[in-house]
């Protein structure tokens, strides 16, 4: 246990008093999948509720996808615990002061209508549930309406969870929640667009393309505000090259190129998938930069 020569530091003044939680890649992916599942559900549900005839057929694919993504997300959440067998302790109290408590309850509440929706979808496919009955239609509507606020809550808590902490960077990012929620909707839009193109629902795709474009532009507002807030800590902890790569991937690759692509390439499935991948990658990169920020030791200048 004896160490080789370590460069000793004198005193404590140069040290960050806080300690980063040992949240690493698992949490980056958790934040990412959180946006994927909640965004997909939100966009599909809004679409189905607003224009059932257009989005209904795509949404049938969207809910199982959101369900799978939710399962992945929940697994990541559980695995990230120090004691995964105690995940259910999260439901021991409902605590407004704790975004994690609120979020867990939202996720739990969100998982219920989603599960039922998926069950109905699967039931319809295998013929157990009559797909065209009024009762089913009404049940779906109720489930969608019930799911919307909790799915929204599930998306909205995640950024606040980080921003209400004492960690360098996180504590300064007033727009982290804003960015995450808006980015979740962007993700959802991109995902549904891909689903529409792949399943050949051109009307839905035709609506989702301009929507995605608009959302990408809108999303630049919280993203810009967030990066502005984070700039001191980002530049303190990441090298110029790292930051350049990160911003290029997230803003250039995640917003600008998709915008151009959406305008230029139209409905080519391959191009749409590629665009969506770019959008998601950009979002992942931002999340990675932020989640890992406190772990990054300040650079010696």
């Amino acid at each position, binding site marked *: *246990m*004896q160490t080789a*020569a*370590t*460069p*000793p530091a004198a005193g404590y003044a140069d040290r960050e008093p806080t300690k980063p939680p040992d949240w690493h890649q698992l949490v980056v992916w958790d934040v990412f999948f959180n946006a994927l599942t909640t965004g997909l559900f939100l966009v599909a549900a809004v679409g189905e509720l607003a224009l059932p005839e257009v989005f209904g057929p795509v949404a049938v694919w969207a809910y199982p996808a959101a369900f799978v993504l939710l399962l992945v997300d929940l697994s990541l959440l559980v695995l990230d615990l120090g*004691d995964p067998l105690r995940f259910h302790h999260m439901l021991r109290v409902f605590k407004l002061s704790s975004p994690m408590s609120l979020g867990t309850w939202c996720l739990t509440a969100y998982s219920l209508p989603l599960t039922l929706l998926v069950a109905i979808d699967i039931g319809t496919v295998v013929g157990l549930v009559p797909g065209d009955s009024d009762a089913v239609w009404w049940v779906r509507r109720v489930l969608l309406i019930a799911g919307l606020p909790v799915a929204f809550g599930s998306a909205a808590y995640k950024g606040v969870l980080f921003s209400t902490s004492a960690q360098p960077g996180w504590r300064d990012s007033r727009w982290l929640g804003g960015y995450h929620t808006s980015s979740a909707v962007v993700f959802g839009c991109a995902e549904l667009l891909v689903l529409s193109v792949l399943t050949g629902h051109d009307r839905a795709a035709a609506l989702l393309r301009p929507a995605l474009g608009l959302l990408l532009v809108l999303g630049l507002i919280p993203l810009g505000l967030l990066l502005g807030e984070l700039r001191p800590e980002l530049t303190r902890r990441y090298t110029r090259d790292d930051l350049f790569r990160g911003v290029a991937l997230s803003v250039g690759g995640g917003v600008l190129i998709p915008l151009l692509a959406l305008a230029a390439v139209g409905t080519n499935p391959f191009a749409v998938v590629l665009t969506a991948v770019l959008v998601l990658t950009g979002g992942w990169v931002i999340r990675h930069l932020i989640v890992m920020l406190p772990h990054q030791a300040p650079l010696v200048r």
Partner: protein
Amino acid sequence: MPGLGASFGRGAATTFQQDLANSDCILIMGSNMAEAHPVGFRWPMKAKAKGATLVHIDPRFSRTSALCDIYIGIRAGSDIAFLGGLINHVLTHDKWFKEFVLAYTNAATIVDEGFRDAEDLGGLFSGFHPESGTYNANEGKWAYEGEGEDGQTKAAHGKEGTHGYGLEGGGRAEDRPHRDPTLWHPHCVMQILRRHFARYTPEVVARVCGCAPDDVGRIADLLCANSGRERTSAIVYAVGWTQHTTGVQMIRAAGILQLLLGNVGRPGGGIMAMRGHSSIQGSTDVSTLYDLLPGYLPQPTPDEGHDTLESYVKKEGIPTGYWANFSKFVVSLLKAWYGDAAAAENDYRFGWVPRVDGDYSHLPTMDRMARGEMTGYFLFGQNPAGGGMNAGLQRAGLRKLDWLVVADWFETESAVFWKDDPNGPPAAEVGTEVFFIPAATSPEKDGTLTNTQRLLQWHNKAMDPPDDCRSDTWFVYHLGKRLKDLYAGSTDPKDQPLLNLTWDYEHGAGHRLPDGTVSCIRDEPDVELVLQEINGYRVGEIDPRTGRPRLLKGFSELKADGSTACGCWIYSGVFPEPDRNRANERKLSDNPVQPEWGFAWPHNRRMLYNRASADPEGRPWSDRKKYIWWDAEKARWDGPDEPDFEPTKPPGYRPPDGAKGMAAIAGDQPFIMKPDGLGWLFAPKGAKDGPLPTHYEPVESPVGNLLYPRQPTSPTVRTFEGPLNRIAHTPTAEFPVVATTFRLTEHYLSGPMSRFNSWLNELQPEMFVEMSPELAAERAITHGDWVTVRSARTAIECRAMVTRRVPSLLVDGRVVHQIGLPFHWAFAGEVVGGNANDLTALVAEVNVSMHEGKAFACQVERGRHDGRQPSPTKHPVAWPTRDPIPNTPAAAQPEGGFTHDE
């Protein structure tokens, strides 16, 4: 112990730790009290909270310095120069406590005019024999005037040291010494003192010590302002003074200073010796020392005067003062040892006690061992292979033994020297047979520890030791029984001491533990019986309550006619009744001295010489410093403590001519162990290296002696030079850096009680060396680098701790670098590393055979040492145990067990 003994009469701390809280100023020197004795330091901190000034003078700015009001950095080994400067300041500014000094010290006593001081002889006192390197005090005329050649001489052991009280007291003729109360007589002690210390001016002290000239006056003024009737100052020292070849004289200098300032025997005053081991005072008192019998009785020598008990008593006894009872102590000890076999007609078997004809102390014994002159050796909780001076030589010694018995808790360096010494030969070349006896820890056995303030405290056995672990009492007792069996039936006279040794400490019934169960170790000896023997008993007088001999109430009951037996007279009174073990008494009261907590020797006196807390007439010097006073109505001494004086002897008592024993001590003479009842500024006897402290450089120093250039080091020091023990003699150019060793709070000694303990190891895991940025820059060393420290013996590697806490000093116009080496690491344990004790030399101070670990010469180089380095012999263990606490619900289990327990 002669340092204190020569000044005051007893080789023990004059006061108790709690009393430090009553000080107005505390000088801590030669002690790193906050680190080595953190809980003891509680009391200086209380004094500080009440407004006292704390001063630390030390080569290193330590955790003690951090809490003191004033820190002065001096060069390691220059303490006498600084203290001499303080004494000189007190004398030249006439700030000494006149009434105290005149009445209670030998300032007025006139010394034989044949005496020549170190001032006259270039650093030597009269009576020096260069060929043997010893002083002959008689030839040197160190005695008081009038004693002349008739002054009683103690049996000399040649060059070797002795702890015997003979050194502490020393005899004199029965005539009263001449005194000159005007202090004008050129040969009176005060005048000798003035001349002797005149050389120690602030400028010279600054040149020697590396401090500023102002520092001397600053500290002296502070001490003077906090001494006198209304105020008192205390001095605290520890091994930072003792581990020098001038250690006894450093303590002597402190004694002189405190006597001059009137700070002895008074609350908040005194000299507090902080000892390092739990019972180091006890092991000196009961004496596992080669030249001492229990209670500071000198072990006999082949001297003619020691042929018979009578001649021995005549030669070693002192007619006046408490030592006049000498024969009672000796006879009672012999009765305790040899029982019925000891009788008046056979001289109480005085002839059975082995005669000391040389120096058999630890260091010379190791030297002999390394030369192959020893057959077998026992180690009881001591680790010479790691903690001994020049530990490499000590390991070489152990490798030359036929057999070695190690009783300890862990596999220390001394237990595994044959296999794990990285610089030793392979095991196949080491012929020593080793027995490791697993020992019990203190909660696993009954027994008494004597702490640094002479307080005996019993610790109770709380549980049985595991498996085959046994107390050392058990081991020694059963070894003795087996030896008696082996020798049974022998009629050879040489075997009779063993066969007649009283050796019966069986437990009547099984030993009941505090939780009500009976000990599984059925043959554990009854430790209370041992303590009762130490306390003493009346031979043949049976106590009907126990069926055993009646116990003594104190040493005043001792007899020289064989009717009493007593294992250690100074401890007598600790067990006055069969059911009253005073060491195990823990009663508290309103009395701040807390006299019913444990038992202090002698006779439960907590502060020694406390008669001096009253003026010659017996009145307190001041209300603020009231402690013991003469109560004329009750016609006895009164106060919160036991008077260290005959309780009913009035202040006005004057001894009649020819008085003997205690009758010869006047009512205003507080130092009852001294034949003249006075504190000794000048010690005509008691120290073999001179009657007054003189600055000499350490045996190894880069600096010559600026005070006495012709005499660089102590003339009486003994070195054991040889291929395994090379010395870099003063002044050395080859080793220009002054090294001093020190203790960290987090570790203990060479580590046997700490480096097997993960909770301590994590706090200080690695060997390092503290050095100044100046030295580091000179050697191109960066903080945290590996460096090699080399002495004339060997080299070790350690990490560089570059810090301004170890100042480089300006000594005589040039920069002298110092380094600090913690001495806690060696090659066995969870954490291992370079051993500072490998660097030190085997040298011995003349009075007590003490080494010089606190100042030696070395060289520092950047980079790792190319020799073989140790690797841990034990894997780190995070938790001492993960067993759950029995009979305890989950809710009350320790928080950190870190188990899933719902």
